[in-house]
């Protein structure tokens, strides 16, 4: 009979790393999403081209390849990254590229009359964006952002392959030490699922809170 208490500790440590990665990756992804998503709608060709290149590049090459590139190739070019930094960088930039298209779509889905109202109120481009367009567009983005965050959570499992001690990595350790395969893998599958449920519950309640007082504004 195996004493699981010590291994439980290991798995929980892994869960902490996974949560940390998901949070840090999501923050980077959110920043990149707004930069690139709004960049694609810019007046300046150079900004549009840069944003499009970023989005197509990171959506086109697999997250896995990007992670390995960040971890193995960048050091050879002179940028030494810890596994955690490489993980956050690859996850954030990859999911950010997907989320940028969400930002663009949401901003474009806001009706023309809203822009005209901004002009009528003599708001500058940035003021109109900040106070009128984005608050409405953000609500449209939220559900898809939730899905993107779940994709990011799932993608964090890949960092175990660059020796970062996340849930998947710790499950492999437990498997190697106990020889039992079912318990560790079933346990982390359940933990991942619970985390995914938490994210979707979180975005749903955020959506409810933010849409309060907006009834009748959105058609």
């Amino acid at each position, binding site marked *: 009979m195996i004493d699981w208490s010590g291994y439980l500790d290991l798995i929980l440590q892994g869960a902490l790393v996974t949560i940390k990665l998901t949070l840090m990756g999501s923050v980077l992804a959110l920043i990149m999403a707004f930069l690139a998503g709004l960049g694609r709608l810019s007046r300046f060709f150079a900004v549009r081209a840069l944003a499009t290149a970023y989005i*197509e*590049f990171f*959506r*086109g*090459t*697999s*997250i*896995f*390849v*990007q992670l*390995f*590139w960040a971890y*193995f*190739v960048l050091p*050879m*070019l002179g940028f030494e990254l810890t596994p955690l930094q490489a993980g956050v960088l690859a996850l954030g930039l990859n999911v950010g590229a997907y989320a940028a298209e969400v930002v663009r779509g949401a901003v474009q889905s806001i009706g023309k009359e809203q822009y005209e109202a901004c002009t009528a109120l003599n708001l500058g481009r940035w003021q109109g964006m900040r106070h009128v367009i984005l608050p409405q567009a953000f609500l449209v983005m939220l559900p898809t952002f939730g899905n993107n965050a*779940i994709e990011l*959570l*799932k*993608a*964090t*499992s*890949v960092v*175990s*392959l660059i020796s970062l001690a996340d849930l*998947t990595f710790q*499950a*492999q350790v437990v*498997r190697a030490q106990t020889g039992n*395969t*079912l318990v560790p*893998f*079933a346990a*982390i*599958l359940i933990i*991942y*699922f619970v985390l*995914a*449920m938490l994210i979707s519950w979180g975005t749903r309640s955020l959506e409810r809170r933010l849409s309060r007082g907006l009834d009748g504004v959105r058609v």
Partner: protein
Amino acid sequence: MEWDWAFVREIMPTLLEGVKITILATILGSALAAALGLAIALLRRSENRIVSRTVGFLAEFIRGTPLLVQLYFIFYVLPDFGLLLPPLTAGVIGLGLHYGTYAAEVYRAGIDNVPRGQWEAAKACNLNARQTWMHVILPQAIPPMIPALANYFIAMFKETPLLSAITVLELMNQAKSVANTYYRYVEPMTLVGVFFLIISLFSVVLLRWLERRYGKVER
């Protein structure tokens, strides 16, 4: 670190071996996902609540957990229950199962989009359930789904590098073994990235064409 074209030429045949397996896994995985997705979508519509709820929960669970862990589960846990699968088979089953749950959502939306009148007309023509599905509902529901399905299959293609974690000798694994043999990461990793980027850019064109060809519903 210098880019070495001679080295690129030397490793190209090995990488192309990997490309073959990558493409094979994608095609088999897509076929399995398309079939499984339909089965899941139909079972979720079952009138037996126990069947529809169970299948629904399982699909949700598979979608909420990482593909990598599922691959480990299939490859390491199932042998304990007497089911020893070769790596590629395990990989294809993993890909097909994971993306089957995504495909199921596409099928569900497509089937829901068939107007009620079609069901009533089938009933009026005295068609039985099988005939209704085969001759009336599916022929109308499937074409509009094709672009969305293709989108997921492209996403699946980008996840095939995960199969390297269960020792399938696909592109990523070949690149890693080459890199480890010569201790040169720049060329193999970059070539893998370039390969994925090229296929992705092509698939964007293919997707646009599919959207034009099948996206619009003619009624």
